[in-house]
């Protein structure tokens, strides 16, 4: 990428640069839709803006579960093959209003259900540093594009860690905002009480600028919170006066040695910057993955009921030939295996006789998980520090046969989604050449302090250096 594209220079030049970069990165399979024509139109639009704004000329890729009227939105699913939305997501409109060039839609696990992109109907994304490994998921296409230097920032979405986990695997910054900070209008619904449009950046500053531009209340999403948009924070001179908790449940004895070593280095840097580290306990985080895999499939089963071959997307007609045969055949053939599995699990846990045993209990466990975080922050902690993932990027095919093994890739990230809190993953080193991420978790609407602290830490950590 040229300096013009990096800095956000002339729109037309940036559009040509990004087109070349996208062509050279085709082997990653990170992009589902893009065209030079749309890139050029976006570049010209930005050049014609009287006041291009905070993202002037910055190219930003968008996960293909965020709708735009110019390109298809498929969610990497056959059931939405060729679908083009009649409206554009609020987040994308705000990025464009701030001068961003938005013209590439990225690959993902189908309907954002997965941790590797191996559940995409159009094949997995390759890790930019090792094509035999996965980039993480579900927003793996966006993560890979930022890591490969094609764009400085990209949108993903989180329901259970789907930006922080691939950010960690690919060695880029990934930020999940507080629930209610960014409008979900135009984000295809998966788990509505969990979903959050989130950001990848090559640096903390890139991610901060994008998040600031799209944050703030939206009359089209009643769950956005009436608070002013986030401001882009400056790095702090040091971290003196900050208290950072180390939840023991996130540092198990069997943590990957490279991840453990990277975390030790991060702790050293934090102490050197003057912050106090304090061991704490979040006892109910141990229940986060089982809780998530009841709540999220239950919400998904309801949200995905709309894909029925009637209102949009391709239609299949089953052997009986009536309208219910349309539902069953369209859904049976259109959804891939992981989405079918989650719809079945979600329907099962909501069905008569099982609702209290599963769904009610999971909602109660969710409250306990969130309460652990609340008590931690109420006790005076500013942030919590954990590894983002238990291991660096795993090999393709390693976890596809056992759904629970795949789910456990999100063991350190999904408690944050259940609680609605903001958090980020910062690249902090490499283990055998593969990136390792550290996670910082903040109280509700603590994004500005969180990003300021991360920017401070970013300056003293050699993210590309091997840890031992």
């Amino acid at each position, binding site marked *: 990428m040229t300096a013009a594209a990096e800095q956000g220079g002339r729109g037309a030049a940036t559009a040509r640069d990004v087109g070349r970069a996208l062509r050279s990165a085709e082997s990653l399979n990170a992009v589902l839709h893009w065209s030079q024509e749309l890139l050029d139109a976006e570049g010209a639009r930005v050049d014609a803006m009287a006041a291009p704004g905070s993202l002037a000329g910055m190219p930003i890729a968008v996960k293909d579960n965020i709708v735009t009227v110019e390109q298809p939105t498929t969610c990497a699913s056959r059931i939405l093959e060729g679908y083009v939305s009649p409206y554009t997501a609020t987040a994308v409109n705000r990025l464009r209003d701030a001068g961003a060039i938005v013209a590439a839609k990225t690959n993902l696990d189908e309907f954002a259900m997965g941790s590797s992109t191996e559940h995409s109907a159009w094949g997995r994304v390759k890790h930019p540093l090792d094509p035999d490994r996965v980039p993480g998921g579900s927003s793996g296409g966006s993560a890979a594009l930022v890591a490969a230097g094609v764009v400085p920032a990209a949108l993903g979405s989180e329901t259970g860690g789907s930006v922080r986990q691939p950010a960690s695997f690919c060695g880029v910054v990934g930020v999940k905002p507080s629930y*209610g900070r960014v409008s979900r209008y135009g984000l295809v619904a998966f788990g509505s009480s969990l979903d959050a449009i989130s950001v990848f950046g090559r640096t903390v500053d890139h991610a901060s600028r994008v998040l600031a531009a799209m944050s703030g209340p939206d009359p089209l999403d009643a769950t956005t919170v009436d608070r002013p948009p986030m401001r882009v924070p400056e790095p702090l001179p040091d971290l003196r006066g900050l208290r950072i908790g180390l939840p023991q449940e996130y540092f198990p004895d069997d943590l990957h040695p490279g991840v453990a070593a990277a975390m030790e280095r991060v702790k050293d840097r934090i102490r050197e910057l003057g912050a106090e580290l304090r061991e704490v306990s979040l006892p109910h985080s141990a229940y986060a993955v089982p809780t998530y895999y009841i709540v999220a499939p239950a919400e998904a089963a309801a949200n995905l009921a709309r894909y029925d071959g009637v209102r949009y997307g391709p239609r299949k007609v089953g052997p*009986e030939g*009536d309208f219910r045969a349309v539902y069953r055949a369209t859904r049976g053939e259109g959804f891939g295996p992981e989405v079918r599995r989650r719809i*079945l699990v979600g329907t*099962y846990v909501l*069905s008569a006789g099982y609702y209290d045993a599963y769904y009610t209990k999971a909602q*109660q466990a969710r*409250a306990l998980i969130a309460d652990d975080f609340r008590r931690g922050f109420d006790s005076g902690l500013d942030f919590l520090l954990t590894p983002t993932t238990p291991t660096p990027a795993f090999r393709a095919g390693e976890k596809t046969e056992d759904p629970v093994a795949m789910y456990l890739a999100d063991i350190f990230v999904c408690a944050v989604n259940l609680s609605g809190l903001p958090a980020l993953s910062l690249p902090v080193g490499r283990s055998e050449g593969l990136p390792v991420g550290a996670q910082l978790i903040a109280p509700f609407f603590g994004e500005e302090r969180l990003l300021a602290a991360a920017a401070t830490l970013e300056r003293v950590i050699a993210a590309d250096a091997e840890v031992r």
Partner: protein
Amino acid sequence: MSIGRDDVRHVAKLAELAVPEEELERLVSQLNRIVDYVAQLDRLPAERMVDAFLPGPASVALREDVPGPVPLARPPAELAPEFAEGFFLVPRHGAMEDA
């Protein structure tokens, strides 16, 4: 709780999802693996159970969701497989409804 083939067929019917017979055994195995895994929530002591959770800080109240007109770039007729005179068209209601 163990899930059998008939349970999978029943849930698939509730979810309006065609599941080929040859996939049933694999689904039974995978769904049991998932349900057995999430059953660890049973270890949470009953006396610690609290009210259900709503995302967001406690001080935040949701606004009323007031639907209003949203301009669309293309009409429903261009999205739906079949559309006429303001209606989405589907095949006729058949015998399956009573099954």
